[in-house]
């Protein structure tokens, strides 16, 4: 079965999608509301994979560079870009909360 990607932005207006309903596949219980996607879920699959690998490496950029087969500063630069992205997503989330 092909892995399906979690959509995070609206294909029509590109705004961030919200979660309206959770369902239990075991007992058919459903929970409805207006839930925000967690910040990490809003990252691209590549970014999420980077975060996962970073955690699995115990935060070692040196080990992460070996996994990706790139140089240490390349991985460091990716991490810095990711930090900026996360800051942007978090401030976007607080703006949405405020409004």
């Amino acid at each position, binding site marked *: 079965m092909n892995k399906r990607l979690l959509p995070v932005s609206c294909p029509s207006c590109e705004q961030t999608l919200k979660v309206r309903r959770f369902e239990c596949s075991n007992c058919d219980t459903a929970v409805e509301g207006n839930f925000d996607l967690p910040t990490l879920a809003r990252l691209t699959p590549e970014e999420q994979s980077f975060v996962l690998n970073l955690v699995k490496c115990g935060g070692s950029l040196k080990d992460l560079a070996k996994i990706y*087969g*790139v*140089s*240490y*500063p*390349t991985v*460091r*630069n990716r991490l*810095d870009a990711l930090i900026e992205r996360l800051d942007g997503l978090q401030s976007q989330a607080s703006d949405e909360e405020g409004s």
Partner: protein
Amino acid sequence: MDNSETSKGKLIVTWLFNPFHYIAGGKALVIGLVVILLTGLIGSFSNTHFDGVLDIHTGLPAPTWVFLMEGLVDWLSLGIPLCVVALIFTKSKVRLLDVFGTQALARFPMIVNALLSLLPGFQRQIAQLPRMGPQFSPSDIVPMDMAVFAFVLLCSLTMLVWMVALMYRAYAVSCNIRGGKRVVLFIAALLVGEVISKVVLIVALNHLGLL
């Protein structure tokens, strides 16, 4: 062109113009220093001096260690200003080893210039240059030597442009400065580095009685 060919092509382009994506730090430093010293050694066989961050001049005999020293001075003269730029302007945690290592590796096109300077036709033409005054006769020009000379000059210029491109990529990867100021700061560091290298080498060679 299918996907595997496109990937191979991208890989080759990356290795040629941004090898620092894959190699930096201590590895780049060791390879870079070996190349710098080899370049100086090969240059000593044809009296080719790399007497500035962006300079190449042929003709002045000197002890071998002078040729080796020139390459190291050139490397440090640019590396130090780039480190200063990185420490002041970057938000990233820069490793000085990456700055110096990638800059050392960025100088590898100069080894091509050192090898080209060994060509006999080029050497003969260089020897002719001081004699090219008002009394010089055009019949003294050997067409083949002139062709080789022109070819070497063209290749040298190409290698120089390639080296500057590599220096910029090395700086971009190791210092991670964003925005328009990245280019401006690199140009400023390059100019400062060129001045430092010329001053250091002129003072050193003067002190040694070689100038």
